[in-house]
Every structure is written in C-alpha cells, then in structure tokens.
C-alpha cells in the first residue's frame, strides 16, 4: 500500500496533470481504498495550476465556431432521442414477451393439472372434469340439444335419409354450440393466441423490413462498386493508349533524328575529304 508521504509528494504533479500513468493509478487506488487523502492541499495546487493560462495572451475564437458547437449539440440530442425511442420499442417488446410468458405459465399449470388427473386413472367413470372442460361439455346436454333440434316429422321418419340429416344436424348443432362457447369464452387461451399472433406478426414484419433494407443497401453498394471499377478500367485503358501512342511517336522521332545525324556525319566526312584534297593540291 502506498504511503501517505508519497501521495503528498505527488500532489504537485497531479495538480499540473503531469503524473506518470502508474502514479496516477496509485492515487486513484488510494482514494478508492477510502484512505485519508489530502484534498485541501490538492485543491490549493489545482487552483494555482488552473491560473497558469491567465498569463497567456488572450485569443478570441472565430464566431462561426459558436454555430459549429450548436450544430454538434443538435446532432447529439437527435442521437440521444433516437436511442431513447429504440430503447422504448425494445421495452414494449419485452413487456409483451413477459405477458406471454406469464400467460403460458398459467396455461402450463392448467394443462399439468388435467394431465395429472388423466394419468391417475384409466377408468373413465373415475375421471372428473375441470371447470373449463365442463363448460365445453355442457352444451352437449340433452335439454339444450333437444331445444335446438327440429322435430322429426313423420315424412322424415319414412325416409331413412331424413334420420341421417337429423343426426347430421344434431352433430353440427353440437359442434356449433362448442364453437360458440369457445368464441364467447373470454378465457386466457384466446387472448394469448391474439397476443402471440400480433407479436409474431410484428417480429416477422420487422425482420422483413430489415432484410429489405439490407438487400437495398447491398444492391446500392454493388452498383457503386461496379461504377467505380468501370471508371478505373476506362482510366487505365486511356493511360495505356496514351503510353503506346507516345512510345511510337517518340521512337519515330528518335529514328528520324538518327537518320539526320547519319546524314550530317556523311556530309561532314565528305566535306573533310574535299578540304584535305584541296589542301594537298595546294601544297603540291
């Protein structure tokens, strides 16, 4: 553990902000350990250090800078607002999930109750129904079905098909009453299904939108890439063509210059020969 004396010796450098990183972390550790830190002394030196800029010649920043600061702050507040809206939508999804979990938890409990009862015995007479099951079964009771059913006329009795129709009507009415009970029941099952559907629909829509956005972005970037590549190819081709043209031109120029030099050399050598002849003839 660092000693208090060493801490005091580091206060000046700490106030000036020139402590080595290791020493700075030691000071932070000393403070975090809750030891008796010399705050008053540090405060005194920090005040002195902060007055050093006063000796500088003051400079006024460009007035445009104030607008730049305002623009930066506006961007920052927009980013914060976006973050907050994202967080709130995530929270909504989470609450719906929690509700679904709670509801499915209740369903599981009820299912487990019925399962336990059926597992206990194989004897149908001993099975007792839960309230919801009883409600579903009740409309099949004789009185209700009797009232709903039309009476079988004598004509119908003559025709065996009439009985068939009757039995069909009976069955359909039973089914209808069952369906009506399920529809009229404001039980948890319906609400859960609705929640589940709306939640899954939302998730699906969100995924579809994300996929569409990704596809669009990919296509855009691909287009840009191909455009960029095309321009690069064109530039390279143009440069190559220029290079080839200049090569041929310069080589042609060089050849013509070489020919000129040869001619000049010939002329010079001829001229020298004539001069030598003249000089020899003069001497003789």
């Amino acid at each position, binding site marked *: 553990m660092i000693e208090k004396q060493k801490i005091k*010796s580091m206060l*000046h*450098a700490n*106030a*000036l*902000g*020139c*402590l*080595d*990183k290791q*020493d700075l972390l030691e000071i*932070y550790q000393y403070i975090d350990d809750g030891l008796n830190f010399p*705050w*008053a002394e*540090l*405060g*005194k*030196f*920090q*005040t*002195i*250090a*902060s*007055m*050093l*800029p*006063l*000796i*500088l*010649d*003051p*400079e*006024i*920043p*460009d007035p445009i*800078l*104030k607008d*730049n*600061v305002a623009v*930066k*702050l506006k961007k*920052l507040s927009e980013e914060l607002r976006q973050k907050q809206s994202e967080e709130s939508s995530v929270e909504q999804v989470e609450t719906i999930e929690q509700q679904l979990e709670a509801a499915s938890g209740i369903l599981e409990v009820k299912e487990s109750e019925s399962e336990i009862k059926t597992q206990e015995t194989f004897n149908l007479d001993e099975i007792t129904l839960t309230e919801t099951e009883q409600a579903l079964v009740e409309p099949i009771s004789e009185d209700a079905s009797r009232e709903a059913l039309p009476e079988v006329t004598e004509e119908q009795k003559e025709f065996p098909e009439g009985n068939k129709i009757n039995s069909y009507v009976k069955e359909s009415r039973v089914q209808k009453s069952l369906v009506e009970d399920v529809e009229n029941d404001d039980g948890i099952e319906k609400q859960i299904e609705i929640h589940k559907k709306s939640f899954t629909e939302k998730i699906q829509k969100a995924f579809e939108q994300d996929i569409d956005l990704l596809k669009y972005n990919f296509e855009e970037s691909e287009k840009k890439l191909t455009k960029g590549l095309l321009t690069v190819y064109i530039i390279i081709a143009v440069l190559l063509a220029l290079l080839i043209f200049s090569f041929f031109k310069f080589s042609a120029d060089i050849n013509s210059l070489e020919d000129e030099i040869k001619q000049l050399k010939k002329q010079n050598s001829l001229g020298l020969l004539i001069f030598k002849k003249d000089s020899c003839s003069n001497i003789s």
Partner: protein
Amino acid sequence: MSSETEYKDRDLMQKVTAKDSKALEVLYDRYSPILFTLIQKIVGKKSKAEEILADVFVIIWKKNDQFDFNSMSVYVWLISLARNKAIDAVKRDKGERMDEYTEEYENKFVLPQISKEIEQLELSDAFDKRDKMYSAMHKLTEAQQYVLSLAYFDGLTEAEIAQKLNIPVPTIKTKIRIALNSVSDNLAMEENQ
C-alpha cells in the same frame, strides 16, 4: 438573455445540467476566449483548437452532471477539462500508444478529478488575479518556468521531462514541487501587498 449573463458560473452550470441551451450559450460566451487560448497554446494549430473547443462544450453538455456543484470550482473544472482534452488530442495525433477513447476512458482521464476542498473560484475572480499571477510567475527562475511550461502546456509527464532535459526523474519531481510552491507563495505575497 440579459438575466442569464448576470448569473454566476455555478448557477449557469446548474442551468446547463437542466439542459438549458441559453445558459450553455452564455457559458460559451464567457469561457470560450480563455479555453480557446489555452487549447491553442497546447495544440498549436487554430483549426485543431477550434475542433477541440467544440468537443469540450459537447462534453460539458453531456457530462456536467458529474460536476459537484456544492464543492467544486467551475473555473478550475472547465480549465482542467479543456487542458486534458487538448493534451489527449495532441498525444493521439503524435501517434502515441493510448487506450481507446471510450466513455470510460473519458470519465477517468479526460474529465478532471477536482478536489472537493477547493476555493470557489469564478472566471471573474481569476481575471482579477491575472496581473498578480503574471508577476508571481516572473519571479520564478527560467528553469522553473520552463519545467512548469513543459508539464502544463506541453503535457509531458515527469519521466518525459526528465528524458527531454536529461535530468534524473527525482530531480524533476523536486523542481516541479519547488516551482509550484514558489508560485503559490509569490501569489500570496502579491495578494497581501
């Protein structure tokens, strides 16, 4: 706006914490010259100094809830923040090995850790002491002035100053202690006159 210009620094900062943009504007008008002067002294380039000054005010807007209004000095906090931000920018531009600039890094090494037992200095009070500070600094030896300048305006650590001057680190530590103590004593003498 005129009422806000009469507010003290601490009251302005409290309004800024309540996200009052007009208060921030007044704070900017009040502090931007000295902060800009300090930042430009440290970074050297005007354009870079402007960029850093803008960043400083963004930090003030975002994180002034970390300022303890009951005990800290607004002047010392703002000056230290501007200095730390400028030194950090200079070191990163030089390509020095630094930790990644995250929120955590900013909270630990850029936001100043100011003592809670400090004189409640306002900008106006500091400016009143400007001449005394000037003469207090002039009473130091050239070596002391140079060491203080290297430490505060150049952002060098004790080890880096020792390496630059080719002097042992303990000697530099002693020089810094003596220099700062001398400034403090000289300033006290000037104020008593």
